[in-house]
């Protein structure tokens, strides 16, 4: 019996260890490639044990810090601003919906819920944002579309307000002379910190990782986020390799492309903040996944 249990446990350990390694291996390859010397990559390809180490790629990045630093600034700004704005909008919309005394209560919930089931698609959104709001090539393009508020989160926060904030508390505060807004700030918000922190974390990750809005609405390199720079580099490689006669004609352009190890170094720089921050927030992240699953 105990023998059976022990072997099951060992098998579980081995299998999970193996899968964990599979999850990590690509990142290790990425980091090793970024510190390989150019020659060893050309000779042996990207590898875990490069023949010669070299910090050249990072020196190059340091020398071109202006461009990258700017992209970092854009990413940090949209992450902070976007997360704050979307949290504010989500709670402001969810709170009245959770109150029993609001007119048309079910209608509002339906209005939010319907957006989860049905959407107009890319083309109308694109035309509305570019033609009506002229958002193209502004910082707003990276913040407003798609991400600013998610109906699912609104419903999640509403459910939390409904189940975890007792209406009696709000009434008590109002009897003590607090207005609607004061009651919201002093009572409801502090009680809702756990759910807001979780949603904020998910929103922040979405903003940090977003490349779609940048690719769709931004062509001005000044507004590129880290993700968009990475995206641009990889599509340039693809463009050159699929038009090889063209790149032969303009040899100059080829040499301007960051070389093989620099490419990987930029990717490392792009992913590093998340990898560093991850151990600190993984607990909340795992919890958040389970909250989302229980709708």
């Amino acid at each position: 019996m105990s023998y059976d249990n022990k072997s099951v446990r060992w098998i579980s350990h081995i299998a999970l260890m193996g899968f964990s390694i599979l999850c990590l291996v690509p990142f290790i390859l990425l980091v090793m490639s970024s510190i390989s010397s150019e020659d060893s990559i050309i000779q042996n390809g990207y590898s875990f044990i490069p023949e010669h180490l070299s910090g050249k790629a990072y020196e190059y990045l340091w020398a071109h810090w202006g461009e990258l630093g700017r992209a970092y600034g854009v990413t940090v700004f949209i992450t902070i601003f976007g997360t704050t704005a979307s949290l504010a909008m989500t709670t402001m919309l969810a709170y009245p919906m959770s109150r029993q005394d609001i007119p048309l209560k079910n209608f509002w919930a339906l209005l939010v819920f319907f957006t989860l089931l049905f959407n107009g698609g890319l083309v109308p959104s694109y035309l509305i944002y570019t033609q009506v709001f002229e958002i193209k090539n502004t910082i707003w393009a990276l913040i407003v579309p798609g991400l600013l508020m998610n109906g699912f989160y609104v419903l999640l926060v509403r459910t939390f307000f409904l189940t975890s904030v007792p209406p009696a508390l709000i009434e008590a505060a109002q009897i003590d002379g607090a207005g609607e807004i004061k009651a919201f700030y002093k009572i409801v918000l502090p009680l809702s910190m756990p759910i807001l922190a979780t949603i904020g974390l998910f929103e922040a990750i979405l903003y940090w990782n977003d490349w779609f809005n940048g690719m769709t609405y931004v062509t001005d390199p000044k507004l590129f986020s880290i993700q968009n720079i990475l995206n641009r580099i990889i599509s340039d490689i693809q463009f050159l390799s699929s038009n090889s006669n063209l790149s032969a004609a303009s040899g100059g352009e080829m040499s301007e492309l960051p070389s093989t190890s620099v490419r990987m170094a930029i990717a490392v720089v792009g992913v590093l903040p998340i990898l560093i921050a991850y151990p600190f927030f993984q607990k909340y992240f795992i919890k958040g996944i389970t909250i989302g699953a229980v709708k």
Partner: protein
Amino acid sequence: MLPGLVYLIINNYLPMFGMIIAFKDINFAKGILGSDWVGLKNFEYLFKTSDAFIITRNTILYNVLFIVINTIGAIGLAILLNEIRQKFFQRFYQSVIILPHLISMVIVSYLVYAMLSSDTGLINKTILPMFGAEPIAWYSSKEFWPYILTVVNIWKGIGYLSVVYLASIISIDPEYYEAATLDGASKWQQIRAITIPLITPVITMMTLLAIGRIFYSDFGLFYQVPMDSGILSETTNVIDTYVYRALMNLGDIGMSSAAGVYQSIVGFVLVILSNYAVRKFNKENALF
């Protein structure tokens, strides 16, 4: 409340009315509302091309494949995770296997490139020579991409799903297992007779949710990972990438909006149908 509502109307409801674009011949001189109606012409053009069939087939087949493999794999992982009793290791494994979920698809495409690049990739330069095999031009051989995309999808998504299933396994009352152990049931018998039946509601719900979204796919996976390569389009083009390319690269508003409307409407019908199925199966698990 107001800003949120205004945003919903602009971001979600205006585009719904914007779907009329698909039934018009858009002429910017006349404006969106002023353009001429063409009825179903755009749809006729779309379904005359071979693209319509390819993108529908790819979208559905990939999704079916992903649903089956991810569900089985994630349940397996969750069961293994549940066997680990040391808190430290359980947390460690969980953290590592959901790490890929945190990474943007752009970064993923770099990771895949480091593996598959034809001149410098790990596979062509290190792994294939070990077996004495010839290098393969991955980015221009379409027959490999169904496998590559499936592997990438599993790598990125399975950890997340297994954490969801683990949560539901943990909530099973331990008394069931104690009783089974007393009766001499083996681990395998316990898994089959207790764990799987008790998490079936969660499995059903997750699967039906996924079926409801079978007409949508992960745009990043199909756009970034194959590096937007035209040569691969027969096995990598899905509805989402088709709409995007028709709009951004070709500027073909009629065609792309028709494909978009096709996706929205069929997708919506599927969500409603799958919810109806859940309701019939178990009322409590239905979404609405």
